[in-house]
């Protein structure tokens, strides 16, 4: 009687010990999984715990939009790259990617949640990786646009450039909420072309040796204390 009484309080402890071990182990592995090496090169800059600033969310999504406009199947490629960079723990599937991109406040289906620092880093890594793969295209388009501009030839005379601009306009108009004043300001083709080319030159800077760090840090300009 006495033995069983003394043994009774021990039992929960040992059970508890087992439970702790069982729960903690997968947590540890998932932590290491969700912090891929590639993201370590990006410093933590978020001014607060509630995620990335508005401009960062907007900018990341627009850059991805420009990549999509650069070549068809960009969205699929983003998922492939996320697996390649071992970011699948952060961006699990297509819907997750879509939700992350919809943290852009200008989206039609914008999410109320913000982007965590880790998620933002993952998206930046994907954008820069894709941009690097597209370096040749980006350079060529920018040089051509420069030449067209200097000769006062409209962009639509140049087929690859016209395609990029047209696709970007279509993407932008179909996905951004026209009721937002920022979106409404891009009411003409010319303004959207300007935005598309601006994003293209930013993508060029992403392709560089330190492109990812530069892009990441630029997202927080004027947002930190």
């Amino acid at each position, binding site marked *: 009687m006495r033995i069983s009484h003394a043994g009774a309080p021990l039992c929960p402890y040992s059970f508890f010990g087992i439970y702790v071990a069982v729960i903690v182990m997968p947590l540890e592995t998932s932590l290491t999984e969700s912090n891929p090496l590639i993201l370590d090169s990006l410093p933590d800059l978020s001014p607060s715990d509630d995620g990335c600033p508005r401009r960062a969310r907007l900018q990341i999504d627009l850059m991805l939009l420009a990549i999509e406009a650069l070549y068809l199947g960009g969205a699929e490629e983003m998922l492939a790259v996320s697996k390649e960079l071992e970011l699948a723990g952060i961006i699990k599937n297509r819907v997750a990617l879509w939700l992350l991109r919809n943290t852009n406040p200008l989206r039609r289906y914008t999410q109320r949640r913000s982007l965590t620092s880790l998620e933002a880093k993952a998206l930046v890594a994907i954008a820069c990786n894709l941009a690097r793969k597209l370096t040749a295209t980006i350079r060529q388009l920018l040089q051509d646009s420069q030449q067209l501009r200097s000769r006062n030839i409209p962009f639509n005379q140049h087929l690859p450039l016209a395609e990029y601009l047209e696709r970007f306009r279509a993407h932008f108009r179909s996905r951004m909420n026209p009721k937002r004043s920022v979106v409404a300001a891009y009411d003409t083709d010319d303004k959207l072309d300007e935005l598309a*080319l601006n994003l293209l030159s930013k993508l060029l800077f992403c392709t560089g040796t330190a492109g990812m760090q530069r892009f990441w840090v630029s997202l927080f300009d004027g947002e*930190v204390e």
Partner: protein
Amino acid sequence: MTIRRQYSLPNCTLVLEGLSDGSAASQLEKRPVLSILMSAECYLSNLAEPLTGGRDFFESLVRVVSSYAQEFMSGVHYPDRHGHDSALVQLHRIDGNTHRLTILPASSDSGVQIDEKTQVSAEVDLTTVQLFDLVEAIDQFFADTQTLPELSLQLTPVSKRYIKSAEPVAQRALPGIIGVSSLALAAMAFFLVPVPEVQRPRDPIRQPNTTGQNIDTPNPGAGTPNPNPTPAADGLLPGDRTQSAISPASTPSQTPSQTPSQTPSQTPSQTPSETPSETSSPTPAADASPSVTPTPVSEGLQSSGVAVAITDAAEIELLRGKLSEQIDGVLKNQPAVNRELVYRVSVGKDGAIVGYKSQNSQTVDRIGDTLFSELLYKPVGSRPSAEPLADFRVVFAPGGTVQVSPW
């Protein structure tokens, strides 16, 4: 031994020449560390002569170009990011695709540089692609740990404070000014709106009148006289205003619902409104009399005019006995009156006192009010509205006796 490092890109080539500091470790390596910079040359595709300079020029170049690249990517302009004014190299944005690189001659008093003589002031416009090549050459240099290892890529976002102070004061004050002025405008607009006058109904008798007219067509409009009986109590007995203020809130709740039975004769409406104000002791009156008295009394009075009075003499006698019994039961605790007090009391068939009214309104001593408010029948359900009633005259004599007689 001179070490030469070259970073080549399509539009820009960066050539660095320098010496190793001669430490044993660096000598042994295949690629020794360039730690002392002798000269830096920057070949740009649209510039025939390279931009050359010493260490100051090179440090200024990498710092300015690097921070300008950040400015280009974020679109956040912060002129004093790295103290541009003192820099030998400056970069300015001309438009979205043109960037002007300016090299200033080094100030004469800084004689540290080696190549000071060859350094000339130069100005060149770079396209975005050319700018990128320059940035990339510099980034490759930064990434190269064997060349000037003390210089490395330092990227920090611009602080919020500098951005805010960069905005002109007028622009920052604008939202505040708009807010204050719109508030002032709104305040002025509200001053122009006339203050609504509170009109107290002067003649309470008119209010039941309207309900009387409504009786034929009962509609939601019948609810409108609701609040009116309350001020009526005020208007009727101005002297009693303070007391009546306690009860009115509960008064109107029942009155409108019973108006139909009341309306055929319009005179009684004077009495109901009077009762709540007359109650001299607030405690019992507040919960009991205001809610009940108005209608039964009016019925009682109207019963004398209409054919609902109890006419049977035996029954009246029986009720008279009950009434005087009730009064005697309560009267014991009360002090004697100074003057004769006359009350008209309505009694139901079962002997319940359903209403009362003082006949000598000038009297200050209102012992009867206290007394009757205690005795008054408090309805549990709803009494039938056309109940036959008997009226009695109750006289309180100064000697302490009470005389009850049929009215």
